[in-house]
């Protein structure tokens, strides 16, 4: 049954435009782009054990070059439209080749700091080079039509993005199973042994960095193609941190892990951001909880469950159910507490209190009205936290012990100072 998983996912994605409204389709375009970007990023981390803290540069450079190529097409160049994201990919690859050569001289913390330094340098140059990158306002270009496809409507853009993302993920899957992929994993395990087998590990790591930057460039190109514009704020740190968050939440050790993380955080940001101003706090807390209790990410948890199933052992459903409910209760308690505090702190709350004469005006959370100082509210919050932590009490032990063994090898080596 597992053989059909990829086909199932692709069929679902193909049929999506008919199932959902335009807002969600736009969200899915962003999910696909974020997924490809995270997968490209994870080639460096999950496969080669190198964590980059400045990958937005290659994503943004891919976007800029794709827009510049679209402008060239507007001025009459005969560059084929479907290959536009490839322009971003090649640009990202070349920049990645140069940056990678420098960055992969070091490993661990030093590697991370070099990637940060390179990002800041590129950003400083790009932000001053207005004639090419368009500065704050940025550069724009219309989507050129191509043969039968107008590529104007969102549905066309969705399929265009889907084709490229499937190609990108297939390439990464193919690379991982290729001899080169084997050697890359060897570099993560024992870099010195690989060099003693006759491989120039510095050249290898530079190539891996460049491929990762190239895939990120394709993702950047797709975003530019969708938005038909890009600007220098894309080079800022935000895109470097979101891809890291996606990879951690999804799980660096599993092939499609980062894509799962990207899907969750993008949809979370797209919808929850309008419901509450504190969505970033909830995302941060989710990130910390995952680092603490699910070091191999959500997909890591699922893979563990699969392995226990395949090994014939029955999954401890009552335990999982107990923990699930405990987690939901804790989350509800946290949300209730945060929303009420947030409401009380805002000056507009006291203005309405004064104008309506009510001492503690109600705050609506989960559709219910809560009076902040009322004993009922206090009791509910305390109850949620108490019961939730009770149910989760035994959670930490087993999950952490076996994860420790596997994860220690995967990332312990990457983080060690050289």
């Amino acid at each position, binding site marked *: 049954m597992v053989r059909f998983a990829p086909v199932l996912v692709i069929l679902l994605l193909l049929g999506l435009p008919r199932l959902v409204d335009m807002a969600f389709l736009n969200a899915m375009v962003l999910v696909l782009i974020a997924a490809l970007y995270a997968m490209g990023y994870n080639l460096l981390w999950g496969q080669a054990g190198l964590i980059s803290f400045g990958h937005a540069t290659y994503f943004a450079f891919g976007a800029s070059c794709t827009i510049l190529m679209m402008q060239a097409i507007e001025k009459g160049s005969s560059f084929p439209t479907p290959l536009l994201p490839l322009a971003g990919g090649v640009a990202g690859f070349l920049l990645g080749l140069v940056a990678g050569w420098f960055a992969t001289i*070091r490993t661990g913390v030093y590697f991370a700091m070099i990637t*940060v330094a390179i990002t800041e340098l590129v950003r400083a140059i790009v932000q001053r080079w207005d004639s090419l990158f368009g500065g704050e306002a940025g550069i724009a270009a219309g989507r050129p039509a191509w043969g039968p496809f107008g590529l104007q409507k969102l549905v066309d853009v969705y399929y265009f993005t889907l084709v490229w993302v499937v190609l990108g993920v297939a390439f990464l899957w193919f690379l991982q199973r290729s001899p080169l992929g084997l050697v890359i994993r060897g570099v993560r395990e024992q870099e010195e042994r690989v060099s003693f087998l006759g491989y120039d590990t510095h050249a290898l790591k530079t190539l891996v960095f460049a491929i990762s930057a190239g895939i990120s460039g394709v993702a950047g190109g797709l975003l530019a193609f969708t938005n038909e514009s890009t600007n220098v704020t894309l080079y800022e740190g935000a895109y470097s*941190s979101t891809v890291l968050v996606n990879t*951690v939440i999804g799980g660096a050790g599993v092939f499609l892990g980062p894509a799962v993380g990207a899907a969750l955080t993008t949809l979370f940001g797209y919808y929850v951001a309008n419901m509450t101003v504190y969505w970033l706090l909830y995302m941060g807390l989710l990130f910390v909880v995952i680092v*603490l209790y699910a070091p191999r990410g959500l997909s890591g948890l699922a893979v563990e469950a699969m392995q226990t199933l395949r090994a014939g052992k029955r999954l401890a459903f009552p335990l999982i159910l107990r923990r699930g409910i405990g987690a939901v209760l804790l989350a509800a308690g946290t949300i209730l507490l945060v929303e009420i505090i947030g409401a009380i702190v805002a000056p507009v709350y006291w203005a309405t209190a004064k104008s309506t004469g009510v001492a503690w005006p109600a705050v609506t959370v989960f559709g219910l009205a809560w009076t902040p100082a009322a004993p009922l509210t206090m009791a509910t919050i305390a109850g949620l936290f108490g019961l939730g932590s009770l149910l989760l009490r035994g959670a930490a032990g087993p999950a952490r012990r076996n994860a420790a063994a596997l994860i220690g090898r995967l990332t312990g080596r990457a983080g060690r100072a050289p």
Partner: protein
Amino acid sequence: MAAARCSGRVDRAYGTGTGDCGLRTLMDAFLVALLNGLVYGLLVFMVSAGLTLVFGMMGVLNFAHASFYMIGAYAAYFSGRYIGFWAAVGVAAVVVAGVGLFTERLLLRKVRVYGHTQELLLTYGLFFVIEEVVKLLFGPTPVAYRVPEALRFTAFTIGQSEFPFFRVLMGGVALVMFFVIYAMLTFTRIGLVVRAAVERPQMVCALGHNVSLIFSGLFAVGAGLAGLAGAVAGMYYPTSPAMAHELGTIVFVVVVIGGLGSLNGALAASLLIGVMTSFAVGVEATFGDLIHRIGLASTGFAGLDAVQFSSIAGVLPYALMLVLLLWRPAGLAGNRN
């Protein structure tokens, strides 16, 4: 560089309004730029002191260290409404040390078993959470945490520019902090143990010292130092949720340039960066002038030659770090290569 020559565009920034350029006014301007740079460097050192010690010993770069700086500022602001200025600064340092202890004992310890990377990621997550919690409690706009009137006067004047007392105070607190830590590390027994643990944690543990207690203690003291820095500098610079983000990266650059785990290196690096950015801002020349001076014809180069040196002041520390990481990763005074 500016002092050497009297005429020409570069010097216009320092010449007096009437265009004559007595050597004394040049010296004044040079001195002011140097002092501004040193004070800003000392501030950056105050924050990075704790970070470099913690990294030296535990091998993990704590992303949330700049957040401790922010918590210190907000704690001093909050308690300052009820107790005096100096008391509030003290309370802030203690509160942040407590937060540091909690973080290390309950959170970092759980994750240490998975290796340094998971610790790094945990502090990365904490950085976001702390920033959002501060926004939740104190709102997105800067809070009115200001230098009390009693301390707002001019310490001394150089030429026409007056030097505020509070900047001198900040510099003073940083220097005192450096000497206190330095003395504690070199002359006391606990300092000896800490320095040994920075080199060989396992060996120190084998010698019977409770290394995990030392870790927690050092982490708490490191956080406390950042909190103290925040409480003092928060009055001068805006106390807002974005202050951790702005200072965060510069502090990493200082720790890396200074040499991971080396206190003197951190001090040297912070002063170097402070002075470098202060001077780069002072220079009015552009790349174009530089190209002419070297004799190359200015080819326009897509508008890049009109870029002022001062507008790239922010990037110089990163360029320096990149060169150092490639050529001498141990940094200025570090020993770990």
